[in-house]
């Protein structure tokens, strides 16, 4: 390729400037990815020489390890409930905040505040919130409901984790509210003239305009939920809480335990690739459905 001297100099500087990323990409991304594929095909404790086992780790995970399917089930359950529920709650709150209310800023701050709290601190707080005689069960008691042992019972630990995730629904609220305020007001005036009530205005104007933001939050939320780790690791620890551990173990804590608890590096690497596959499948499904429900303004111009 014939480049002028100036162009060549510019290209030189370009590659010099992007070299941090290129080096980081090779050392911390591409190299490790290739290594991870190789590890996943071996039996390796990371101290002795790896033993080639071909696809054995994958076949064992998929056909021979009952734990894996439970764990995958818990992960899908958590993602499939917490993410849509969080979005519905976030949307509902955003719609309330979008009304002509006093002290909107105060309400918005109070709803957003939980999302600023680091997960470790949230987990610590919810360990006490959901304790057998903690505030939640006391409140349920006032309603005449006997609250379960959220954090010990294998059937209640997943709902407990979902409750905790709902506490952070305000993150979506703020994004949705920002998008709502960008909807042209004239649309509402026109609907008003046509006699549409507030419910009809919400379903026919507000919601369609928000579908791109909802879609974005859905995809990002699903990806994050499949990778849930901190709160599961803290609230359902393997060593001290077997009941909860059996009821709530998700993919990344399993991977972590295999890699850094029992040093099954090959097996753990295979789990990582299966997790990637699961995330990819759900993302592709989400994108496939967009034509049916995601509305882009440019389409009607």
């Amino acid at each position, binding site marked *: *390729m014939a480049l002028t001297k100036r162009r060549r100099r510019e*290209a030189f*500087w*370009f*590659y010099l400037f*992007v070299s*941090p990323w290129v*080096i*980081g990409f090779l*050392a*911390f*991304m591409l190299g*490790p990815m290739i290594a*991870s594929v190789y590890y996943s095909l071996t039996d390796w404790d990371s101290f002795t020489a790896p033993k080639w086992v071909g696809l054995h780790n994958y076949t064992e995970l998929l056909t021979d390890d009952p734990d894996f399917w439970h764990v995958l089930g818990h992960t899908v359950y958590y993602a499939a409930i917490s993410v849509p529920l969080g979005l519905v709650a976030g949307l509902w709150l955003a719609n*309330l*905040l*979008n*009304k*002509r*209310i006093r002290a909107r800023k105060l309400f918005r701050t*109070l*709803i957003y505040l*939980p999302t*600023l709290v*680091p*997960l*470790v*601190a*949230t987990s*610590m*707080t*919810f360990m*006490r*919130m959901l304790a057998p*005689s903690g*505030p939640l069960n006391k409140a349920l008691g006032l309603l005449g409901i006997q609250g379960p042992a959220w954090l010990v019972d294998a059937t209640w630990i997943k709902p407990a984790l979902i409750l905790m995730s709902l*506490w952070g629904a305000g993150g979506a609220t703020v*994004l949705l509210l*920002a*998008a709502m305020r960008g909807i042209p*007001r*004239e649309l*509402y*005036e*026109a*609907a008003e003239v046509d006699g549409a009530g507030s419910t009809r*205005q919400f379903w026919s*104007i507000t919601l369609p305009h928000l579908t791109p*933001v909802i879609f974005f939050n859905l995809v990002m939320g699903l990806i994050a939920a499949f990778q849930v*780790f901190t709160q599961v690791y803290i609230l359902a*620890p393997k060593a*001290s809480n077997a009941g909860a551990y059996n009821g709530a173990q998700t993919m990344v804590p399993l991977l*972590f335990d295999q*890699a850094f608890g029992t040093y099954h*590096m090959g097996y753990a690497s295979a789990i990582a690739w299966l*997790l*990637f596959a699961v*995330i*990819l499948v759900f993302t592709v499904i989400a994108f496939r459905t*967009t034509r049916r429900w995601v509305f882009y303004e440019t389409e009607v111009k």
Partner: protein
Amino acid sequence: MAGVLTTTAPERTRVDGAPPGAPARRSADRVRAFRATPFTYATLIVVAAILTTPIVFAVSIALSSDATVSNATFTVIPREFHWENFSRVFGSELPMGRFLINSVIISVCSVAGQVLSSGLVGYAFARLRAPGKDALFLVVLATMMVPAQITMIPQFILFRELGWVNTFLPLIVPNFFSNAFNIFLVRQFVTRLPSQLDEAAMVDGLGFFGIYRRIMFPMLRPVLIAIGIFTLTYTWGEFMGPLIYLNDESKMPLALGVQYITTTSTPGQPPPWNLVMVGSILLAVPMVIVYYLGQKHLYEMDINGGSAGLR
């Protein structure tokens, strides 16, 4: 899409009779969708109260006496006010001060790394021309798809070979190589800046690095502040990285340290919940302050609007 009300609103005669272009807010706020009822307020107050309860409860536990902790007789509304718990954690009982210093070191170095590297890389992708640039940028975007778990184990092996386990280096050093999301943010920001400035500087004989350092870097302030806030928030709360790499109590950052003290209490004894909650509050308060100080910059960046562009 069925049921969508569309109209070329700005062109048609305004319902309120105001001339086109006049503020529509007043009349539009009267439409039913924006009408607040007592029910709206009641719902908001109840929701706000529920969402605030865990925070008040955490403060209440943090102010509890040791006797309350061992009986687990906490109340949501504080009944006792043992403010000394906040100084106790810095005494000989717990290494909370050490945790805090470690968190600050790791976070500050990580922020510096991301800000320095992402600015330069993002600028290059936005402004400089080179063969293979577009293909390389596609690779940058593709890396956003790869979940961290894939590279976690090989990275651990790499850092262990380098003798970096039980040091801050595995948590800090990768930040000096920037990341895809931050590169993308800077690139988007630079493309919106007028290019006459750097062209003029080039005519004046400034080299590419000179242009970056003297002209671009100061103009990138808003986006670099946003990247700084994101990096700080992420590193400050990061749990799994420190859990993998740091074994010594004296090396742990606060996020790991707080969890660590709940696992090391004497058998048969509950963890020192009051001090754990003081730690949790120390973990949360800086994030609230950072958000409060930084929200102006975040809105300036229009990060929210950017999300609507995903198709």
